[in-house]
């Protein structure tokens, strides 16, 4: 499947290339997405509720999010140096990342089937160990964006416009850095809320609280830096002269990081994203 995206004038982007550039990430993305079929079926059958939502909503969200993450990494892999993606070290690392994602999804799905919390669960010694291991898995899977960001940053043969090249590398690095800050704090908190919700009012689809601070909003925006920055870079390349476009990407990155920190600060103050 080829899609016309004017990264450069007259260029097209071949989506099918993900299978060649990152077979492990692509295969894992497909499996993660296919698993949504039985998960949605379970959600339709299961009447159990956890913290106000169907027990299967959280696994569904994580399968969607990690599927998108894997597919995004697989897409950006085309901008890594050939020598890197053909090397043994990278293939082993990609397998470790896929395993971390699989373990994360099994832990979240398993906890859902038992109707218990997967994150923040310190009710039994086993769950304390599971939660600690999930932390290791989460850092491992997020590290893929840092490794790829640095790899793309140093690759001088991507043929991309400089601003777009910079925005992809910066976006991946920022995903790691900002997610580590926000999610790192979030994991040491007792839950994703700062405050105690009473009415249960939430933002549609995203599910963040409209009453109290919800750290998941900052996590969401932080982790989507790998989409947000390239979007800024792509627009900058389309509408600006090259030098200006590069400056715009740097400014965009600073603003993006500022936005995440503002959302983080807002949640820490116990304030909702939208009142």
């Amino acid at each position, binding site marked *: 499947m080829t899609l016309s995206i004017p990264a450069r004038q007259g260029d097209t982007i071949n989506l099918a290339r993900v299978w060649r550039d990152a*077979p492990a990430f692509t295969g894992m993305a*497909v499996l993660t997405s*296919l698993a949504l079929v039985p998960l949605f079926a379970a959600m339709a059958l299961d009447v159990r509720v956890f913290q106000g939502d169907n027990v299967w909503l959280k696994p569904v969200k994580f399968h969607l999010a990690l599927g998108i993450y894997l597919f995004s990494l697989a897409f950006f892999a085309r901008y890594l140096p050939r020598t890197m993606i053909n090397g043994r070290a990278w293939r082993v690392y990609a397998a470790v990342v896929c395993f971390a994602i699989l373990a994360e999804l099994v832990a979240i799905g398993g906890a859902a089937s038992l109707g218990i919390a997967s994150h923040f669960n310190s009710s039994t010694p086993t769950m304390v160990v599971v939660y600690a291991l999930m932390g290791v898995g989460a850092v491992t899977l997020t590290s893929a964006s840092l490794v790829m960001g640095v790899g793309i940053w140093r690759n001088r043969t991507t043929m991309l416009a400089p601003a777009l090249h910079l925005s992809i590398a910066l976006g991946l690095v920022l995903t790691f850095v900002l997610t580590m800050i926000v999610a790192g704090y979030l994991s040491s908190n007792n839950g994703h809320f700062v405050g105690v919700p009473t009415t249960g009012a939430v933002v549609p689809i995203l599910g963040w609280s409209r009453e109290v601070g919800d750290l998941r909003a900052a996590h969401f925006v932080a982790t989507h830096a790998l989409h947000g920055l390239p979007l800024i870079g792509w627009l900058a390349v389309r509408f600006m002269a090259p030098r200006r476009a590069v400056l715009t990407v740097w400014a965009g990155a600073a603003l993006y990081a500022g936005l995440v920190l503002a959302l983080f600060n807002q949640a820490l103050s116990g304030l909702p994203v939208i009142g």
Partner: protein
Amino acid sequence: MTPDAFFQFSGPIAMTGWLALVLSPLIPRASQILAGIIVPVILSIAYTALILAHWADAPGGFGSLADVMALFADPPIALAGWVHYLAFDLLVGAWIARTARREGIAHLFILPFLALTFLFGPAGFLGFMALRATFSMGRQTAKDIA
């Protein structure tokens, strides 16, 4: 032999087949003969004998969920049902190992699905079908690009 004593035997017999499948890269032919033929045949003989001896006296039937539940309340018939699971789940496991080998899917990838088939039969089959679809999608696309 009482149904309980029979039950004690059935597990280890089936486990022999599953163990052979886990080790199948080392013993491809022997594992298929054991898990695909010998163990299922032994279990099927036991199943057939149980049905021949106890079907006529069994309560319930297949007409409704309540009938099926009444049927499985009878120990020899419940045992037959259990042996049926063991035999057919193992056959599916053997088919998974055979199919993965033929299609060049590395053994490491099928281990979780063999475990899932052993524990929750159809869930493991479903997972393996998804894995197969993923592999064939990757191969097809790689061929199209080349």
